């Protein structure tokens, strides 16, 4: 051992080595191309009707900054707990993570953050508005009207809302069954909006006279009265058909009827599903009658599946053509109705994006039921039909329509929205608020172009945060695709599945079906998010920079151009495409 040690010690080494600093070697002179921090748009945000900043919400949640995450939702949507439950979350369908394993459970996170804020009972601390001194009257305290009030008051307008019913909420209060949206959650979120200083007048149906009176004392009007009247089917025996909307409304008003036997529900939309599932909970055996196929139903597919599991029957490709009281004593034991169904078939072509169904010859079928309900759509009360004045005096936007009279009147919500969803109604309220603010501050001619500047990607969703010039204003409209994500940084991990009542239990009660995630579950799920296009301060750019040219100052990252040689490693490493290589901007 002695000899070998001596060998090592004797062995001379002659190596290039320098003790002088390399700071003098300004490698930035080698550069002909350089990296930029460049935040982009996540597909989930663009798919969200209200354009929530989802990648940032998930980032904050993942970091445990739950209050900030909730406030980030509140920038764009005053109803996190409601939307976390009732929105059909198009964000998740567009989630890039879905191409790696499964989309992020965005709605579960939103609901958790909303519920937590309700529990905490702390108001948001978003920047207070600068008061404009202008007043806006809002007709209808549904999601559109409440959202309009929320955003307008945040922009410094004094708002009064007029509501015909005894409580606010519109469809949320009177249409959506409590197993999907518990009353308490809704009440708390509405109260929070009210506390922003909005005057709410319930039990105040607006007629022509009142409208004229309101108009006098306000600088603008927003009409978001929704679709209060359901559409008739216009077939012989119409009188035997009950209105599905009215059933939902009476149940939400606390009147509990019991039903027995088969109940036919005509329609294929979400209301038809709500009616059928409510009937099932009230003791009936519901059968949905739909003129097309299951895959053509406008109802949200998971809702359809849940309904079927709860025991709701679905008859496809049938259209009722006649309803008669069942008087044949040999065929029915109790009183009931015979519904004559025309069999339908699918033919070539589409009608408004859906398969075309045509009668299948003269084939018919008779269905004997105890009750018949319709849920084939709704329309506004006649009073609210929008005037179709001269073109020059009106402006049609994606989610509302403005008539320029003595003072501007904005129609929104279901009245104008192509997609009649809760979240689109909120989007409508937001669009109206921004449009009116632009109108008052810059003038009517600027509305369209100014809105255009604050779209999420190419719209139609608008960002209030961008409009108010906050951080989001710097995002480019480039939509981050899955290919642009550095998936080396993301291990496959399953999506959280919230606890759900069994089909057996839920078909017998109005208890809420899905549970809210726990804090730990939510943070874990949020950590799955790619945070497409935004900087999460993960610092991989800084770690991998061979020239140590990335510097951090007050949580912002900068490229030190004295040393950045333009190798692009930072951009390649960036897990979420929040950087880009580009020409020098001289």
């Amino acid at each position, binding site marked *: *051992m002695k*000899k*070998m040690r001596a*060998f*090592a010690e*004797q*062995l*001379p*080494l*002659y*190596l*290039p*080595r*320098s*003790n*002088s*600093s*390399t700071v003098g070697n300004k490698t930035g002179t080698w550069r002909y191309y350089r990296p930029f921090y460049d935040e982009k748009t996540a597909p989930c945000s663009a798919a969200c009707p209200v354009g929530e900043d989802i990648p940032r919400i998930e980032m904050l949640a993942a970091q445990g900054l739950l209050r900030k995450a909730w406030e980030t939702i509140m920038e764009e949507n005053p109803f996190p707990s409601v939307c976390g439950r009732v929105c059909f979350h198009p964000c998740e369908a567009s989630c890039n993570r879905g191409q790696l394993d499964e989309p992020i459970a965005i709605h579960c996170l939103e609901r958790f953050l909303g519920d937590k804020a309700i529990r905490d009972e702390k108001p948001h601390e978003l920047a207070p508005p600068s008061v404009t001194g202008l007043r806006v009257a809002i007709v209808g305290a549904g999601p559109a009207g409440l959202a309009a009030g929320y955003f307008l008051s945040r922009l410094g307008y004094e708002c009064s809302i007029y509501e015909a019913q005894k409580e606010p909420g519109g469809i949320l209060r009177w249409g959506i069954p409590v197993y999907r949206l518990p009353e308490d959650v809704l009440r708390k979120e509405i109260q929070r909006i009210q506390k922003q200083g909005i005057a709410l007048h319930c039990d105040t149906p607006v007629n022509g006279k009142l409208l004229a009176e309101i108009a006098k004392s306000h600088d603008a009007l927003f009409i978001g009265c929704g679709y209060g009247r359901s559409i008739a089917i216009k077939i012989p025996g119409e009188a035997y058909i009950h209105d599905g909307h009215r059933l939902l409304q009476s149940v939400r008003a606390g009147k509990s009827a019991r039903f027995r036997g088969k109940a036919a529900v005509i329609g294929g939309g979400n209301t038809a599903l709500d009616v059928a599932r409510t009937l099932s909970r009230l003791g009936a055996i519901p059968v949905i009658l739909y003129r097309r196929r299951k895959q053509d139903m406008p109802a949200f597919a998971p809702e359809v599946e849940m309904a079927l599991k709860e025991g709701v029957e679905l008859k496809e490709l049938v259209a009722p053509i006649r309803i008669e009281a069942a008087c044949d004593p040999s065929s029915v034991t109790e009183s009931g109705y015979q519904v004559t169904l025309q069999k339908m078939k699918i033919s070539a072509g589409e009608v408004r994006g859906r398969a075309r169904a045509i009668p299948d010859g003269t084939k018919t079928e008779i269905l004997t039921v105890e009750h018949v309900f319709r849920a084939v759509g709704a329309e506004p009360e006649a009073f609210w039909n929008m005037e179709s004045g001269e073109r020059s005096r009106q402006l049609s936007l994606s989610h509302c329509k403005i008539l320029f009279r003595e003072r501007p009147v904005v129609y929104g919500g279901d009245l104008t929205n192509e997609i009649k969803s809760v979240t689109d109604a909120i989007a409508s309220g937001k669009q109206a608020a921004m449009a009116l603010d632009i109108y008052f501050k810059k003038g009517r001619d600027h509305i369209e172009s100014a809105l255009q500047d604050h779209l999420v990607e190419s719209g139609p969703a608008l960002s209030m945060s961008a409009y108010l010039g906050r951080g989001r204003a710097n995002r480019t409209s480039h939509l981050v695709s899955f290919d642009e994500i550095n998936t080396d940084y993301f291990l496959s991990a399953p999506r959280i599945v919230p606890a759900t009542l069994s089909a057996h239990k839920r078909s017998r009660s109005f208890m809420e079906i899905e549970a809210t995630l726990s804090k730990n579950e939510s943070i874990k799920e949020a950590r799955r998010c790619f945070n497409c296009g935004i900087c999460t301060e993960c610092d991989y750019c800084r770690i991998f920079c061979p020239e140590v040219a990335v510097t951090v100052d007050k949580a912002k990252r900068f490229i030190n151009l004295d040393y950045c040689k333009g190798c692009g490693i930072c951009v390649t490493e960036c897990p979420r495409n929040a950087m880009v290589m580009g020409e020098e901007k001289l």
Partner: protein
Amino acid sequence: MKQVLEGSHAVSEAVRLAKAQVISAYPITPQTHIVEAISAYCANGTMNSRFLCVESEHSAMAAVIGAASCGARTFTATSSHGLAYMHELLHWASAARLPIVMAEVNRALGPGWNIWLDQTDSLSQRDTGWIQLYCEDGQEVLDTTLLAFRLAESANLPVMVVLDAFFLSHTFEPVDVPRPEKVDRFLPPLSPRFQLDTANPYAINQMAAPDVYMEMRYNIQFAMDRVLGQYDLLEEEFAAIFDRKHGMAEAVRCEDADIVLVAAGTTASTCRQAIADLRSKGEKVGLLKLKMFRPFPTDLIRQNLARAQKVAVIDRNCSFGAGGIFAQEIKSALCNVDSPPGVFSYIAGLGGRDVTQDTLEEIYLQTKTSHTPARESIWIGLNRELVESWRN
């Protein structure tokens, strides 16, 4: 304790016992079993080491260069195309004087795609400044790997431990796996002679102009020469603890041999049996097993071959346009000897083709019956039919 070990795992066990601190590798058949076992040891805590997964052999070598520059004991393993892909960094590792140990499983290069034994991959890295040690069996693989760390760290040169694809890498044999305390006595923790350290910053491996470059290269040659002079001492130390010794080269019955076969790797094992059989028939034949290829132990080779009449070198490799690579080296080692033996160069067993005792007897007979070699390189065991099919 004796264990039945796969040749690959003889390497893995040695690396475990050597307590290598950073291991980086990219899988390639037939090397994969080596790093597979090591990665499991790193993952389950048997080894307190970092296993760096990388996307290529080039990066694997770059990673161990980085780790070794910071003073860590490092290991990697590769084979064939993987080794070829490392080529640039093999030069870097030696010139940066980093004591990296690598296991290299001799495998053919494609195309035609072939995963079996062929020595051309490692031999074509001849001039990269790596010490190369060829092994014959599982025990020698384990011993040589342990020794390689000491050697590398003493000479500040990287060491390649070479073993034959499948015949050795995938063959199970009883191997004595020493106790860790014994290994610790032979191989203390690395105390690097230089290391990158943020507390004491300096830059290494920067530009070396003509006024110093040549001296740096002479410094490497100097170290290689020293390795030749000191290797025996290191082996003695090893033998004192483990009671085993393998030598830079091993001469078997060369003292009175007229003809000496020269071979490396598992072929040497087959040669041992062949010469025993030939000796029993009265043939005066010996074997020189080559273990150390770089530095090339010229003196030892001269001592053992100079008195033979003929030398038959068996190459499982080929430098196209010249011939067997070992034969080239043997010829150059003997060229300045007075009345050197005739050197017959045989190329056999490429791409995993068997070299059997029959093959070796054919080589012996051809050498014995020819006054001089028929050609510079003689290809043994060619399928005549196949050759005729494309020759005409």
